């Protein structure tokens, strides 16, 4: 093995770009490992971890770029570095044409119409940028994670005083004035306002609102920690108040992982005071709390969407209906193909809240639900929604496990997501089924496509690729989980 390390002093690229380029290099023939990172202490640890931290990289600083390649031959190393240089040279060419501001303050001063900053820089710097944005009177979408709790509280208090939004940290999804920000789907506009403390949970609610004929006024994110005791739901309360005042909004949906009890009480007080009907959904937690005036609890994200669409149309939400007979017959048919020892579900998810919801609907300690977007899987790697190929080895491994009856997958579409996740995943589904077949088993793959036909990936197109690979398609994330559970528990959930 040959190792080449190139250092570029004072050259900055954002991590998403670098990770994409590193993947491109790693895919070249003969390349065993390719890393392209800014030489921060964290990234140096990463380099050390794969044995690529040489003395040059050790000495480099946070504004120096390190490109390290381990390959079978000298030529392969050189070729990989050339691919990197070629791609960045093209980028530099593009960069030069745009008016380049290096600070938020300078950009905001020159663009008086600016009203929102989308911040996705590394977490240790993100709070500084968010503060700068608030100082300029900008609303903030803070996509970055690894922002300290103290910073989050301070930012949100400042934003609250100024009447501005701080969506995040770790906020992946919002739709403001019909514009999808970061990871969001192309959904119809309408009268339903959504406030979400979880990205894919919010996506799931909005695609079902769209599917059921409704539309959204504003979709606001708060970041996952907003309803913790420390933050106290500052942003969810502010967003709820803003939507209560918003003339275009007739119904509000709140989506969050289960909140801290004290915060839940505060939220419910605000919900009760809200003059508009509010649908509350805490997927993965207890199905419902005590009903409060004006509040409608939904056990699943899909039900939350259904209730909201019904309310927006002037109706009263009915009790959730599940097509038990159909589910039972499907499950019974599926079961006939399983060996007796196949009794577990392997959920492999890109979306954290989709994972939590599915896990919450599939009781049983033997099942394994993995959120591949969690920190332990994404350190130094792109998110699986951007790079779905990261999930493929997990699918194949699940197929080789004799206890696994069902592999449950989410395919998340929309802005920010990979242009063809189903196309990337379908061959692995075929291969997974082959692996099981070769071992004398049958493994069911249930896939749910979270998206709309207006998304650039096209929901129907994505579904047909998955179906062609032999996957069973679920109509919602919850229904996928119900079916999976019905198959392995050999009875339909009542």
């Amino acid at each position, binding site marked *: 093995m040959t190792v080449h390390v190139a250092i570029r002093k*004072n050259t*900055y690229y*954002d*991590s*998403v*770009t670098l990770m994409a380029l590193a993947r491109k290099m790693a895919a070249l023939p003969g390349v065993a490992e390719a890393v392209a990172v*800014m030489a*921060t202490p964290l990234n140096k640890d990463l380099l050390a971890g794969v044995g690529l931290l040489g003395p040059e990289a050790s000495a480099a*600083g*946070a*504004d120096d770029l390190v490109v390290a390649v381990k390959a079978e031959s000298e030529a392969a190393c050189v070729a990989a570095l050339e691919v990197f240089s070629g791609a960045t040279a093209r980028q530099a060419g593009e*960069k030069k044409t*745009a*008016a*380049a*501001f*290096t*600070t*938020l303050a300078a*950009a*905001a001063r020159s*663009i008086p*119409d*600016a*009203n*929102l*900053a*989308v*911040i*996705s*820089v590394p977490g240790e*710097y993100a709070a*500084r*940028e968010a503060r700068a*944005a608030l*100082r300029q*009177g*900008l*609303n903030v979408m803070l*996509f*970055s994670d690894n922002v300290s709790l103290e910073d989050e509280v301070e930012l949100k208090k400042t934003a609250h005083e*100024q*009447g*501005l*939004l701080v969506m995040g940290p770790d906020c992946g999804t919002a739709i*403001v*004035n019909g*514009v*999808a*920000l970061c990871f969001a789907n192309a959904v119809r506009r309408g009268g339903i306002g959504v406030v979400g403390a979880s990205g894919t949970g919010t996506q799931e609610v909005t695609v079902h609102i769209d599917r059921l004929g409704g539309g959204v*006024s*504003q979709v606001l994110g708060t970041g996952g920690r907003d309803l913790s005791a420390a933050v106290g739901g500052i942003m969810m309360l*502010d*967003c709820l*108040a*803003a939507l209560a*005042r*918003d003339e275009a909004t007739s119904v509000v949906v709140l989506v969050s992982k289960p909140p801290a009890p004290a915060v839940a009480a505060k939220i419910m007080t605000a919900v009760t005071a809200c003059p508009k009907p509010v649908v509350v959904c805490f997927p993965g937690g207890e199905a419902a709390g005590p009903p409060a005036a004006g509040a409608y609890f939904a056990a699943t994200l899909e039900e939350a969407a259904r209730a909201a669409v019904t309310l927006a149309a002037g109706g009263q939400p009915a009790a959730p209906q599940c097509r038990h007979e159909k589910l039972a017959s499907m499950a019974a048919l599926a079961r006939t193909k399983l060996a007796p020892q196949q009794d577990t579900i392997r959920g492999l998810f890109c979306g954290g809240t989709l994972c939590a919801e599915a896990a919450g609907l599939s009781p049983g300690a033997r099942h394994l639900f993995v959120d591949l977007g969690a920190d332990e899987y994404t350190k130094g790697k792109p998110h699986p929604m951007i790079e779905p190929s990261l999930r493929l080895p997990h699918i194949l491994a699940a197929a080789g496990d004799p206890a696994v009856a069902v592999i449950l997958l989410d395919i998340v579409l929309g*802005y*920010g997501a990979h242009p063809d996740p189903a196309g990337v995943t379908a061959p692995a589904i075929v291969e997974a089924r082959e692996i099981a077949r070769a071992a004398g088993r049958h493994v069911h793959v249930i896939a749910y496509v979270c998206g709309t036909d207006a998304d650039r990936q096209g929901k129907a197109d994505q579904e047909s690729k998955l179906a062609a690979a032999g996957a069973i398609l679920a109509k919602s994330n919850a229904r996928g989980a119900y079916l999976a559970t019905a198959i392995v528990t050999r009875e339909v959930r009542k």
Partner: protein
Amino acid sequence: MTAINELFKRKLTVINVGAPLFRDDLAAQEVPVTQLDWRPPAGGRPELIAALDALSDRPETEAANAAAVAAILAARPVLTDLALAAVDAIPGMTPTTILHAGPPVRWEAMAGPMRGAVIGALIFEGLAADEAEAAALAAAGKITFAPCHEHGAVGPMAGIVSASMPVWVVENAARGNRSYCPLNEGLGKVLRFGAFGAEVIDRLRWMRDELAPALKAALAHTGGIDLRTMIAQALHMGDEGHNRNKAGTSLFIRTVAPGLAKAGLAPAVTARVLAFMHANDHFFLNLSMPAAKAALDAAHGIAGSSVVTTMCRNGVEFGVRVSGCPGNTWFTGPAQAVEGLFFPGYGPADANPDLGDSAITETYGIGGFAMGGAPAIVQFVGGTPADALAYTTQMYEITLAENGSYTIPNLNFRGTPTAIDVRRVVATGLLPVINTGMAHREPGVGQVGAGVVRPPRECFDKALLALAARAK
């Protein structure tokens, strides 16, 4: 009605800080989006980030900077006199004092061009007969070396000022403080590039004996010349006040000519004086520099201010002074190589590292900072007029104010970027852009080219840390 509800009613206009992926998605939705050319603040160095945080949103710093900015913008540098001998005008100067460009430097450590200029000055003063004697004298510790800047003076390139050299006297009419600068000798073999041959000494003598008295008399008839107005006009005529002074020189000749005529000099003297000024496109540089110096000295020593009041080079080190660190507190780093074009026959190996006090013009917001209005000189840096505009535009990011007196026509008469803020330099990593000439590294060869240079970052890092320490 909160700002959130106002946002709901307005068209979204986004600044994207981070992944370009999100910029692309927004652009695809036809949302106006500006991608920030973001990099980790202060190069990601924690001690600098801590210093930045300690000094940002700090009322004392903001107030001190407002005072420094006001002093710079209010300054009205007026050419009031020409002193026939520096020793009579410059405070603290003695017959054996030699002032030099840049931050302090010992004789032993001086760059080639500066050593040559010191030798020439000692010969000119009659303190030494030749090179060997001069060098021995300088080495024997008999000469007091000091930076021009520590005596209210500035000098281009080697910046050598000795006792009997004539100096311009510029007074800041707003504050009464004065600055000084020797007269520009022209191009070729000249003292400021380290030449000390007979022709150099002869020219210095002629300047002392004929040129200076003539111009002094002319000035007396002209009355003071408002340099702020003259610089403002020169900027509209394609000068930037550092590397291009054609317009300023022409304006000066035009202004001083009637006084010269009235001075009652022999026609041959008047002719020689006019011809000398006419032959030297950089004659005005030695007026734009003390004008800048007078303005910036008025802003120096304001406790808590992070405004840069001096940038200068001695050929070995780059030196920076900051308003909030009063007196002669220097923050230095190695002088950098200049990037630019070389005169025929010369190349990068011939050039001395960055040299001279002329970066005072950039400190004042002209020179490289005003390059956007001086498209004719961008060829020196191998660039296009668009590049020149980009240099100027970039400098707004590290400055606190725009000078309404000095405007850039093709930036819609926007004021030049003025008052460099150490905090912004460190935060952005954007270093001031300086237009400059290049001296040959050997004494006496002269100018070998011109181009653009940036200071070493460490000057600003050190200054920021010192300011933060004082703020505690």
